[in-house]
């Protein structure tokens, strides 16, 4: 095997849109990384990887998938929840089970509910160039947007509803329009200089929230407070 950094791309039950979007830039990716994926035919979750890119949500009623996810976490240095389903739940948060042939598959969640996630990337699906760009940034160090994607991993939902509640309805929206240009279903539109949510179109992908200059600021600041609280807790011997 070459000395290339190894990456695993693994889907846990999403729509396959995310891994296929990655595969479209496969020739470029393969020049830089040693890529392992089901679409290529060489996925093996038993071995070690530098990066694991997980797509799709985790079904909390499927022991098999939970075990797989834990194994991948153990075997990889950096774990990335890639796409809305894996990172913030996406459309699949609406799942309520009851459907044949497995009515017991009731609850789906972002993978951060089960394992520690290093970076959470919304997008349904993210554009093909996204992964190359992201891995490049992770290798070259800290930055605002990496902190943002790290902060997103502390959330188990983020959507147009949160954007409305936390930014627009609280009056801190400045009306820049970034969210409107970031919605894959055109669920946000500008009304009198403020975005409004067409609720029946929102698929809870979370893209709008991480593109909003106000919300990103809040996400990062809250994450920092949380980390500080964790540190204090560990100093006094708590969890």
């Amino acid at each position, binding site marked *: 095997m070459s000395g290339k950094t190894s990456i695993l791309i693994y889907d846990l039950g999403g*729509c396959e849109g995310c891994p296929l*979007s990655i595969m479209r830039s496969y*020739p470029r990716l393969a020049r830089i990384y040693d890529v392992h994926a089901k679409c290529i035919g060489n996925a093996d979750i038993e071995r070690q990887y530098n990066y694991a890119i997980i797509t799709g949500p985790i079904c909390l009623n499927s022991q098999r998938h939970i075990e797989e996810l834990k194994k991948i976490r153990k075997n990889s240095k950096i774990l990335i929840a890639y796409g809305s389903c894996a990172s913030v739940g996406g*459309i*699949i948060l609406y*799942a309520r089970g*009851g*459907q044949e042939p497995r009515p017991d598959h009731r609850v789906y969640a972002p993978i951060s509910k089960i394992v520690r996630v290093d970076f959470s990337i919304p997008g349904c699906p993210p554009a093909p160039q996204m992964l190359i760009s992201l891995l490049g940034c992770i290798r070259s160090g800290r930055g605002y947007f990496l902190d943002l994607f790290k902060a997103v991993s502390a959330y188990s939902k983020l959507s147009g509803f949160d954007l409305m509640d936390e930014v627009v309805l609280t009056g801190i929206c400045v009306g820049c329009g970034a969210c409107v240009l970031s919605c894959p*279903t055109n669920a946000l539109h500008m009304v009198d200089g403020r975005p409004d949510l067409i609720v029946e179109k929102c698929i809870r992908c979370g893209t709008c929230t991480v593109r909003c200059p106000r919300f990103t600021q809040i996400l990062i600041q809250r994450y920092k407070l949380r980390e500080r609280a964790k540190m204090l807790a560990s100093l006094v011997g708590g969890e």
Partner: protein
Amino acid sequence: MEATVIDLQRVGGEAELLAYDLDGIVEKAYFITTAPVRGFERIVKGKNPVFAVNAVMRICGICHAAHGIASAEAIEDAMGVSPPANGRYLRETIGLLNKIQSHLMHLVMIIPDLIPEPERMKYIVATLNILNKINDVLTKIGGSPTHPPYLVIGGVSRVPDEKTLVNLLEELDKLIEEYIVLRRSFKTSISSSDIYGQLRFKKHKPKYLASHMFYGDKYSIRIDKIRVVRYEDIHEDLPSKARENTSMIALYDGQIVETGPRARLNKYYDYSDDSLWGLQEARLIEIELFLKRTRELLEKVEVGESGHSKVLVYRSGKGTGVFEAPRGTLIHTVELDDNGRISKYKIIVPTMFNIPLIEQAAQGFPSKHVDIVPRIYDPCIPCSTHIIRLDSR
């Protein structure tokens, strides 16, 4: 007999093939999907129909538009609205581009079986190149290459302008040529491969199900003849491993039928090739036909005319939408309650028809290469694990 479980890779989704081997030949095979069931039919229940179209596209990242179109058709049928001419042309275009995407992606995944190392990457790159250009075309017409947002109830929400259309037509001409060149050289490269010979040799003659060559026509098939059963219902003595299966099976008129590219060509183009290779060949033929049809449709689009009906009628009703997805006949049925919200939703996807055929075709195939059989059928697991008929277990 020795049983092996093959973790299938290079197929759309998570699945295994449980194969029983006798002297190097597969004696019996079970195709087991293992992806969790997300339950889209339940997800959309109680929701606004507008949500349903956006939601069901996320059943599958491969045949997203097919679900979007079948869903919109079903809801329009229930609401009693229909798209204007532009909407019909553009919607069909989106559907065709989606089928081309899917066939090309499938080609990328099957190339490693057919073409050895030094040339392999060249073909993958060439195929992805065409795919990326198709994606650009779909972005301009549908708003995005995956889950195109311009697909709405009542038609297509944006109509491209004159300049864009002219550019697209030029682009398509180039794409058609590029594809024909790729296909020709691909065929010469594979003809010497071992596996190609095996695929040519293995024949079986299934019954076919198709509703239209390009779009979908609910009147050309009898939907009442489709029966959806549990996997256990078509197999006796199911090994316990196979009971983990998460997909359902569909039968037409009580029989196992093949649906997809070969069925369409058989019914509308008099194509007949009963070998396993014939199925792949049909896909390669379809890409060209679809590219040409796309071109034709775009020429019909009237710039300046609307692409959607601009009416949503919230009322109770029942509707059916049938669309030819990349893998075959896709059926969505919907019932709306008095508020126009969804009270019942049911989806039958092509892979549900094809699963028994994958198992039949695997029988008698050399065990060493049997993983290519499901791959050549191009099963779509994200789709097939979202299905119906509620009864107690």
